[in-house]
């Protein structure tokens, strides 16, 4: 079979995750630049019925391994299966999501296939048939460009929420091919899973984030931000100061030792803007700062700044948003 660009789709709880479509769309773009076909590898429980969906984003052929033993991601089972499937496609480039599971899969897959992976890529360029990838280092204080040497196979994990989903002009259902690959016996196992069913917006996937910092003063004051977030369909984040004070769980922490986020709008409430925090949200499209200290460093990065007591401003702003939403709906 001719060389192709191969994307690895991420399937969970009965559906492809959105980032899979972002990666497929990017794969189509790069495959066109290289003059190659785009193929996919999809593993999971119940994935066969959905595999054709990848065709909408330009995937022509999907190798599928549908097995209840692959319901939850586990490095020991997924990596050998995906490695075998990828090898059958003889790819010129492998793309996968830089999601939590994707980053883990990619690392171990790269070691198994003895190929070099670059994680968390935000831009791929193709010059004279050579691939270059750009990725943030030092939590976005800098970017690195990487290239592969000689005929080394490029493997790239793509940061979620950066590359756009593009449906093909002529969407077709992808050709689905079931493959017979044994699922190895694993020593490790998934003991339990606990998925949020309250519809809370995940920080790394949110288009709007409202983050509270030291200025929030205590845990109960976050109810104010939660209320505004609900109106806007936003996620609530926190600075390290707020997490270290025990006001918010560490999973909400934005910054160099927390999550790096890139929403459309980041609203920093009572956050002074330490360099570590800026490193985690500096790539947001719009930054809004609300702080009563006019000298807070956050204002130098903000597109819109409001110098005001947050305890007065947030209720007033929430009321304005409520009015707007009621006239829109």
């Amino acid at each position, binding site marked *: 079979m001719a060389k192709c660009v191969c994307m690895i789709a991420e399937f969970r709880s009965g559906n492809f995750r959105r980032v899979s479509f972002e990666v497929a769309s990017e794969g189509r773009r790069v495959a066109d630049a290289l003059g190659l076909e785009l193929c996919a590898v999809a593993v999971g429980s119940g994935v066969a019925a959905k595999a054709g969906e990848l065709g909408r984003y330009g995937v022509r052929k999907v190798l599928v391994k549908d097995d209840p033993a692959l319901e939850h991601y586990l490095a020991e089972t997924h990596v050998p299966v995906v490695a075998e499937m990828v090898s059958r496609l003889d790819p010129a480039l492998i793309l996968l999501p830089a999601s939590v599971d994707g*980053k883990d899969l990619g*690392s*171990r897959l790269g070691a198994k296939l003895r190929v*070099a992976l*670059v994680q968390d890529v935000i831009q791929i360029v193709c010059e004279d048939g050579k691939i270059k990838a750009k990725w943030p280092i030092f939590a976005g204080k800098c970017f690195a460009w990487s290239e592969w*040497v000689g005929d080394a196979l490029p493997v790239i994990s793509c940061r979620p929420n950066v590359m756009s989903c593009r449906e093909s002009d002529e969407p077709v259902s992808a050709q689905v091919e079931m493959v017979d690959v044994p699922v190895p016996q694993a020593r490790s196992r998934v003991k339990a899973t606990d998925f949020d069913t309250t519809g809370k917006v995940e920080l790394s996937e949110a288009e709007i984030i409202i983050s509270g910092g030291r200025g929030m003063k205590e845990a109960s004051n976050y109810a104010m931000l939660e209320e505004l977030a609900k109106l806007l369909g936003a996620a609530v984040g926190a600075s390290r100061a707020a997490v270290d004070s025990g006001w918010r769980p560490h999973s909400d922490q934005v910054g160099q*030792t927390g999550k790096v986020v890139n929403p459309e709008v980041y609203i920093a409430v009572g956050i002074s803007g330490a360099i570590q925090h800026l490193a985690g949200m500096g790539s947001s499209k719009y930054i809004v700062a609300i702080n009563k200290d006019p000298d807070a460093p956050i204002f130098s990065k903000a597109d*819109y700044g409001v110098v005001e007591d947050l305890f007065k401003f947030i209720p007033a702003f929430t009321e304005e948003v409520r009015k707007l939403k009621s006239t829109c709906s």
Partner: protein
Amino acid sequence: MNIVVLLKQTPDTESVIRIAADGKSIVTEGLKWIINPYDEFALEAGLRLKDKFKGKLTVVSYGPPRVVEALRTALAMGADDAVLIDDPVLKTADYLRVTRALTAAIKELNPDLIFTGSRAIDYDQGQRGAIVAENLGWPHLALAVAVDCDGTTVTIDRPIEGGKVTLESPLPALVTFGGAHAIWNPRYASLPGIMKAKKKPIATKKVSDLGLDPADFQPETARIVITSLEKPTERKPGRIINGDLDVAGKAAELLRCLHEEAKVI
């Protein structure tokens, strides 16, 4: 229980990062160096297990002589031994080679458990743990925000988008650590710890001491290289909403900006 903690020395989180004259590395002069915070979480978790099982804990790292300082800190926190792979060939080797050297150093220590950070705050590739586990043919459990070990089995909580999974593995196994300072509260080195650390051994090794051929680590063996670094484009100075307005006026004006100008709400 024999525990190995893999750690890396990184610039402090507050560092201002400048690009060096070669255009593809950073200026290291004047930087303050620390133990990568995620590796420090792994070290703290390892030290707690060592205390619980009266085990032994060895820290393993690589890099130039400045890394000794990070290893001394780890020894002062309570680690028993340290190994530093200090070999100029690693400077130009890609991460596949570096992890190969780390794997060889770990094999000599014959551990039951390997703990390491899920990522390093410098180049942030988050691959080291999974690659070492693959090299050893071991199970690995990634991104622990909680860990428990009864001596024969290790269990972790792993946060993923929109939820959490609990993973379990018999030993030997490798665990990578996520979370935050607020979860792990890494201990500070005590004064007696610092005094004791001065007498603890740090074994310095070259790749040839690990049974590896230096020829396999030469620059031309690299499959991937960084060709250039660039700084993010500076954000244009923004707008402060008119301070003469009252609170309601500021709220209305900010919403107008976000709704009509930026069109994001």
